[in-house]
């Protein structure tokens, strides 16, 4: 089981869903906070809903307020990067670039992509955590190869 878990995690890294930051989180996990990573990820998904909503609303406005969009995305990016959501973060960066150049279409497109990645990661992590809980307390995180 543990091996399965490790494989699952490894694939998440290999596929680029997660990055080094996730490992940092795992390293923080200990007896005091055995489910720290899950706790943080849950917190992230809960809080980012509000950010996603803000972005959606802002993208519906006409004309687009790029600086506001950029500001929202900045927050979202910060949050996402802190849990190691690599693909999401990449989309965030792309989005901000479009904001900088005032490319509304680019922003909207990227946002859709971002939402997809965001949702995909969420599902994958949910599975992962479920599995992890079954496996029991895991030993210290190991860096992905």
């Amino acid at each position, binding site marked *: 089981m543990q091996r399965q878990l490790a494989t699952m995690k490894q694939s998440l890294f290999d596929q680029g869903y997660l990055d080094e*930051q996730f490992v*940092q*989180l795992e*390293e*923080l996990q*200990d007896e005091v*906070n055995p489910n*720290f990573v899950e*706790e*943080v990820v849950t*917190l*992230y998904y809960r*809080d*980012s809903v509000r950010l996603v909503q803000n972005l959606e609303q802002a993208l519906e406005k006409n004309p687009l307020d790029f600086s506001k969009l950029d*500001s929202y995305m*900045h*927050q979202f*990016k*910060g*949050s996402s*990067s*802190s*849990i*190691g959501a690599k693909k999401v973060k990449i989309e965030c960066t792309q989005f901000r670039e479009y904001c900088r150049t005032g490319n509304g279409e680019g922003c909207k497109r990227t946002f859709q992509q971002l939402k997809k990645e965001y949702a995909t990661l969420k599902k994958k992590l949910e599975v992962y955590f479920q599995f992890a809980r079954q496996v029991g307390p895991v030993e210290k995180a190991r860096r992905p190869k």
Partner: protein
Amino acid sequence: MHLEVNPVPFAGSTASSWKSGGGGGVVSDQFPAGLRVLVVDDDPTCLRILEKMLRNCLYEVTKCSRAEVALKLLRDNKDGFDVVISDVHMPDMDGFKLLEHIGLEMDLPVIMMSADDSKRVVMKGVTHGACDYLIKPVRMEALKNIWQHVIRRKKHEWGDHNEKDVEQSGSVEDGERQQKQLSENDDYSSSANEGSCKNSKKRKNEDEEGGERDEDSSSSKKQRVVWTTELHQQFVTAVNQLGIDKAVPKKILDLMNVQGLTRENVASHLQKYRLYLRRLSGQHHNGIGNSFMGPTDATFGQLTSVNGLDLQSLASSSSQLSPLGRSTNRTPVSVPLNDPRNIFSFESPNIRFVHGQQQQQHNGVNRGNLLHGIPTNMNMPIHPHSSQSNSLLTQMVQPPQQRNQIFNDGVFGQNGIDGFAPAYTSIPQPSSVVDFSRSQRTFSTPVNNNFGIAGLASSNKGMLPQHDIGSEINGFVPTCDVFTDVNQNNNRTDDWGFQSVGPTTFEAPQHLNVQSGGLVNNSNLVPQNIPSDSLSRIRGERLPDVGFQNSLFSDQDDDLLSTYIKQNHQDGSFDNEFGFDGYPLDDLPV
């Protein structure tokens, strides 16, 4: 010089290491474990992660998602934190603004963080006085070393003087501790910082020299005086002989008869001493927080680092002063003497003050000071002293409790007096009329205050007592009365708020003073040592504020002041007397 203390590993193996002298220290033997960190970030995910990371470093963490709350926490627990980590982008308050406030009020090391790694933002952090800038996502390694900022600041606080001084006196626990720390730090990067800090200090000194048109060639160098025990003893003897109330720097200097000691040195030392006494006696808690006395040198050049003195005073003296306008009027807690962090030892602070004051003077740090220095209640006792500039300063310094020190510094700076003697204690708060006679006339009425303030404004609002100092102060005597009254009545910190906002504000007018020469240059008022930058700046600012122009004031919502000015202002003659030609006096409110 070589520090004798052997390096103590941070694991806290040595009982004496890092332990606060009186046991009140925050740092335990296991430093950096136990470091008290305040984290501010509106993003709950990041906040949680940071909290956990910091806890894993064995730090004591307090988290906070709003800047306002953070400030309140800091104000309510002066000395309750060692370092603050704050996000740059926050909805309720810009991180840099928070940084400024903290620097001015509490003078704690602040680390900024953001997902934004653009040079522009990082530079902003630097200019606002952040001691470090972390890029998100923050890693554990980055957080592990934040203790260095605390040490560094303390080290600067105690100054390099400690290194020399402590060895001599050997009586300063803190100094010893510092030494230990210093020795400990030798191996760390902080030693590199030390070098740079020294450089920066030197730079500051140089600036000060350049900035001040000090008549004293010897003092032009603004050397730091090391107040050894003997020297201090001589000082105390002189002060006692004169009587604490009557002790003015010039007289003290004469009595001490120490070669190479300048009036400014004595003045600044006196200021600190007064604070110290005040603290001892438990009166006027507003005093400058000894606690705050410490850190500042390090950040000196920065806005936030208001010369140690100022900040400290500010911080301690009152949260009231906070530019935020939240004058809580809480008398700053006098830091217990035995708190190692705080000044406890008179020597260090002295040293600090010296430095600080100098800095103030010219970096416009005064600005910072000024702003903050403006206590809500400005009861700056100003006693009319003899005409010596020092006295003037001393008097000015009086302002009780509150930040007077800061102001004093500013004032001093302007007058070329190095330290300003914050009125520590016995200074009565009479609103003596400051007599700008030096330059021209004496103001017998509070009107002078206005001017004084205006002029002084640069340094301390209201701090300047008006008196007849004629000669020395060169006309800057800021009259505190006006402000005092105004402030007192209104408790307005808001007024100053704008000012405090910024050193930036003060910068602008700089040329005003100089060029227009209104206050400073013209007539005899020329403030000699006025820190060119700050003073002029301030002056420039203030005059208009004071109401010559009245515009600023009104803008500032200083109805009281305007009113006051109106009351006291006696037509335009007032202006003329002062010879503030430089300033447009046309609009003087009548």
